[in-house]
């Protein structure tokens, strides 16, 4: 290739994939924006009427489900962080030659279908399943004891499903930390707690940031866990969007809700990025 055309090479590399993302991510987003402002029905067709009113209408109608999804996702993020940080820390600093085996164990759930994992979890939590059923027969648990169909079931399912997404980025961040830095801190009379809080924790913040996003984002939009493990009282916004789209064919309403969810997520991501001071967002 002649030298003066060399600047074209990167574009040749990125154009096929870039066009794919443009056609099947960016354009659909724009279509969804336009659909949300249309009125009509599947039978008579839709017309763009710039019906912005659908947004406040949808917020009003589905505020509890919206708030619940946000709340569940926050709880799940905090719980996975609380479980995942010690795990990642142990694997990174104490794993020794078992490191890769331990990591493999962490990603084991990925090798089973998400749906099957969640159905198995339902089996575990079932009222008269092999676990609680046996405990009840043995008189250890009260007959009325129940986890399935409660918020706890949904949150535990989400926590289970997304825990590896928290552990992996945390591990990557912690693994990079040079143990000599922690040693230096203790040599300079920092206690182990101080050394952790002032050296290890700040250095692992990129992992905390990435892990929180990777658990929060799929949790807030999830509808599988609540559908399988929950009840009407645990309905999340993802279930509403899915039903409006696929069962009711209420495309404008569903699109509007989808857009608000997307805006909420991106808004929170950027605020969080500011708070944590992560400049690695797009890197």
């Amino acid at each position, binding site marked *: 290739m002649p030298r003066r055309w060399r600047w074209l090479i990167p574009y040749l590399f990125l154009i096929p994939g870039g066009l794919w993302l443009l056609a099947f991510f960016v354009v659909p987003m724009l279509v969804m924006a336009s659909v949300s402002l249309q009125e009509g029905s599947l039978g008579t067709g839709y017309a763009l009427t710039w019906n912005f009113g659908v947004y406040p209408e949808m917020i009003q109608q589905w505020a509890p489900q919206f708030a619940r999804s946000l709340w569940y996702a926050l709880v799940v993020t905090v719980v996975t962080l609380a*479980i995942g940080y010690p795990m990642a820390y142990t694997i990174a600093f104490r794993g020794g030659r078992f490191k890769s085996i331990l990591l493999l164990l962490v990603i084991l759930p990925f090798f089973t279908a998400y749906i099957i994992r969640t159905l198995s979890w339902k089996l575990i939590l079932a009222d008269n399943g092999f676990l609680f059923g046996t405990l009840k027969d043995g008189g250890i648990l009260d007959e009325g004891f129940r986890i399935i169909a409660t918020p706890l079931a949904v949150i535990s399912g989400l926590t289970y499903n997304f825990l590896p997404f928290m552990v992996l980025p945390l591990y990557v961040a912690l693994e990079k930390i040079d143990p000599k830095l922690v040693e230096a801190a203790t040599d300079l009379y920092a206690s182990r707690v101080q050394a952790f809080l002032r050296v290890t924790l700040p250095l692992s913040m990129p992992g905390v940031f990435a892990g929180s996003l990777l658990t929060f984002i799929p949790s807030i939009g999830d509808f599988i866990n609540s559908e399988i493990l929950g009840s009407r009282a645990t309905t999340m916004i993802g279930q509403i969007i899915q039903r409006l789209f696929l069962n009711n064919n209420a495309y404008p309403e569903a699109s509007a809700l989808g857009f608000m969810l997307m805006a909420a997520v991106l808004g929170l991501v950027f605020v969080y990025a500011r708070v944590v001071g992560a400049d690695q967002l797009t890197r």
Partner: protein
Amino acid sequence: MVAPALSLATPLPDRRPTVGTRASRLVLPVFTGFAVLFLFLPIAVMIGFSFNDPAGRQNITWQGFTLENYLTVWGRPDITGPMVTSLTVAAAATLVSTILGTLIGMALTRYDFRGRDGLNLLIFIPLATPEIILGASLLSMFVSLDVQRDIVTIVIAHVMFNISYVVVTVRARIAGFNRSLEEAAMDLGANEWTTFRKVTFPLIFPGILAAALLAFALSIDDYVITSFVAGRDITFPLWVFGVSRLGVPPEVNVLGTLIFVVALAFIAVQVWSQRRGISVTPGSAR
């Protein structure tokens, strides 16, 4: 018998911290062990119940051990059909997204060009978008354009959400890549294509392989996006979800177990070959 005497002779304040530290040293590994058990529990249940011999449709209580499900599953086209669809979709989506994503990864790591920040954003935002939005927006577009939804639309969607993951994975590998190896090849008279074929590609291949495995896993696992873009053809997760209300037959556990075992074997081979790679160049372990 010496120990009590010693402990009496040694002042207590000196011993206490050691005992405390010793106990606290166990806390983290024990905790991690329980967490790993937590992760493995549903999989153990899935594998266990693939050997169950349920009386009715419901495969939820243990009735007795049987290997029969491993034979009957092959005579259930209603289960194996969606599985074949899933495997086809995953293979196609992996192939296309790995090629497209690797090209973008190379462009981002090896060249300076205008629009780099925009491209980075285009890669990042799909990762930060809940899957349900990705699926819903694609459905909006397909409905607006009156597109027939079938296996093709599923592949289109899977390639879309896989590209970003492939770019991120491949980029991480190319970023740690030593350019002087390529320069050496060129100095020794290799042209650009030969250099790519003989030096660059073999070096970044582990990254590409990891990206392809990830893409395959994400694709075969996906329920949320697929539920929006599937029409005539349904994938294995969609089929399982559909029957889950009535009761999941043990044959589903059989297929789940088989996939699990195959995936485990794949990863084991990868880990093993990586280990060998590390032992060749000890300095690059970190």
